[in-house]
């Protein structure tokens, strides 16, 4: 009688009624799934986790039915071997291949639909639509792991997910590996003779990201100057830049994180009015990256750096 494919309908119901229905499902799930699965030796529960938002979450037993509403968390979970414990991920989670993608939405979370998977741990990147409140009412522990602002934030989140799912050793190993790889990329790019400027594009209306964001921090680590940092007056870390300013800033490197959403590449950028004179366009230093990789703060930041670092290296040789 467990609901396996709950519809992600946006029906409104009284919270109490949802809670009652859901409690029924949770009870049914507990009853029908005896805890006979083997527990890795490293896992010690209960654990208490303080999330970046400051909330403390206690997890009594090792979770076996994890629901992830954050594509980044999904990537982290599978990278630390917690994948088999994940029963459902949101509609945006598409990596690694074979993740249990559902119609669940992290932007418009439907408490009832989430509860239909009888989760014993829910992970999301933001508390929208009273998600935390709803899960607390159902006594389901929920971790909010918001967009990281630095590489260290990302490492902390990976370790928290390791602790929460009983994969502490794997999480530590992943973080150690990532630290080594990042250090390797940083050493690869020598100190340039002059500061190289980068323009990171989020969509074809020139939205960008400042150094206060995760992706901005990656550029900072690689020693690049981010032209979006000029937009200090804007209240957002993701300002929409004026075309005049971008052209005038003459970036040495343009990174297109809108190859999927908006099908942008060197040719389309070169054909924009006035953009032909930009150094990056003239020298072909316009690099397209997967939108997803560039917008997630998970283990694939290494893939992102792998795409960028050789370009930076080339530019530094030219500048030297």
């Amino acid at each position, binding site marked *: 009688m467990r609901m396996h494919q709950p519809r992600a309908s946006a029906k409104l119901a009284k919270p109490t009624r949802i809670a009652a229905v859901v409690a029924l499902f949770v009870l049914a799930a507990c009853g029908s799934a005896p805890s006979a699965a083997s527990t890795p030796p490293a896992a010690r529960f209960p654990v208490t986790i303080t999330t970046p938002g400051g909330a403390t979450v206690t997890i009594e037993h090792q979770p076996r039915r994890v629901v992830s509403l954050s594509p980044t968390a999904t990537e982290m979970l599978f990278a630390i071997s917690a994948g088999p414990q994940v029963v459902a991920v949101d509609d*945006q989670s598409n990596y690694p291949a074979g993740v249990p993608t559902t119609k669940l*939405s992290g*932007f*418009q979370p439907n408490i009832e639909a989430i509860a239909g998977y009888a989760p014993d741990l829910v992970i999301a990147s933001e508390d929208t639509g009273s998600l935390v409140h709803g899960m607390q009412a159902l006594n389901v522990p929920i971790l909010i792991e918001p967009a990281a602002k630095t590489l260290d934030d990302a490492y902390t989140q990976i370790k928290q997910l390791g602790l929460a799912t009983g994969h502490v050793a794997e999480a530590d190993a992943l973080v150690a590996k990532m630290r080594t790889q990042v250090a390797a990329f940083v050493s690869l790019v020598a100190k340039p003779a002059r500061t190289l400027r980068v323009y990171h594009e*989020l*969509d*074809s*209306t*020139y*939205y960008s990201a400042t150094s206060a964001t995760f992706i901005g921090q990656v550029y900072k680590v690689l020693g690049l100057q981010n032209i979006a940092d*000029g*937009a200090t*007056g*804007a209240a*957002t870390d993701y*300002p*929409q*830049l*004026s*075309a*005049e*300013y971008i*052209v*005038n800033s003459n970036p040495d490197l343009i990174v297109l994180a809108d190859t*999927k*959403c*908006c*099908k*942008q590449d060197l040719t*389309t950028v070169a054909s*924009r*009015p*006035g953009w032909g*004179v930009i150094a990056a366009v003239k020298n072909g230093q316009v690099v397209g990256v997967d*939108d997803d990789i560039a917008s997630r703060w998970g283990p694939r930041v290494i893939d992102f750096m792998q795409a960028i670092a050789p370009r930076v290296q080339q530019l530094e040789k030219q500048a030297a």
Partner: protein
Amino acid sequence: MAEVTAPARRLAIITGLPSLPWLWAAAGVVTLVASCAIAVLTGPVHIAPATVFGALFGATVDPGQANILWSLRFPRVVLGLLVGGMLAIAGAAYQGVFRNPLADPYLLGAAAGANLGATLAIAFAPGTSVIGVNVVPLAAFAGAGAAVAGAYMLGQTVTGARSTIGLILAGVAIAAFFNAIQIYIQQAQTGSIRQVYSWILGRLTTAGWDGVLLVLPYVLLSVGVIFLHRRLLDALTLGDDEVSNLGISVRRVRLIVVVAATLGTAAVVAVGGTIAFVGLIIPHTIRLLAGRSYRVVIPLSLLFGAGFLVLADTAARTMLAPAEVPIGVITAFVGAPFFIAVMRSTRVSAL
């Protein structure tokens, strides 16, 4: 003798006074020129006035600055002129045709249709183009046209050609229906949400000469047709029966003006997004200040609407420079209080 003077007065409304006051026409032209001057002289990149005028009048200037001026700033100002003038004149025309003070160019669902078309294109056909033109403006244009055509046909079948109420209600229904579909798609395709928002709030950010060329024919045609009908819009203020007695087909006038205004609106919405309030505030302000004859309101709406949007876009480009502020935010934020101030300082009169 009353039977003689009454038709004479009616005839006077169509053929005679009041014509456009010269002082107001001059003020409109001055405003327009001043707005354009401010707009070309300011921007996120500082360029000396001498360089700007040099570039304008063919002198040799720094190629980098000339590139910024000719490829980015000038086309954006020209596009702002076309969009602002078109939205204001279309708003005035709609208010005349429907004799409804709340009528704006989006009354019959043009904005909802354009938003739906653009959202569909952004979500399902990103980056594609048809005969060299990006599919997003094309879809927006088609969506706006489809919404207004649908509202018109629906309105005709409900209450017939005699009443504008049926048309307006049909427009409201179509707009609500299209909005529902648009929001559903937007929520389902969260990856494109930022682009959809930047569309809805208006965007002259990516303007170039190609956008100017795209809208120019439609704007010229639409403005021309509305201009030719400004006397008939005055006649419509007499009421449908009176106008019919004069041998004018109310239905035909209404259809022609709506089609013309919609065509122009759809074109500018396709490149500029759905910029709000211009079509409402500009004609009403002119009515309050300069007079309510359409022979005054129509030409002045064109001039002041163009000037207003160029200034609003200058603010959008420079307020948080080098970041952009959505132009729709500026037009509403500045326009609404200004309109209220004008309304309070004058006595509101009928359309």
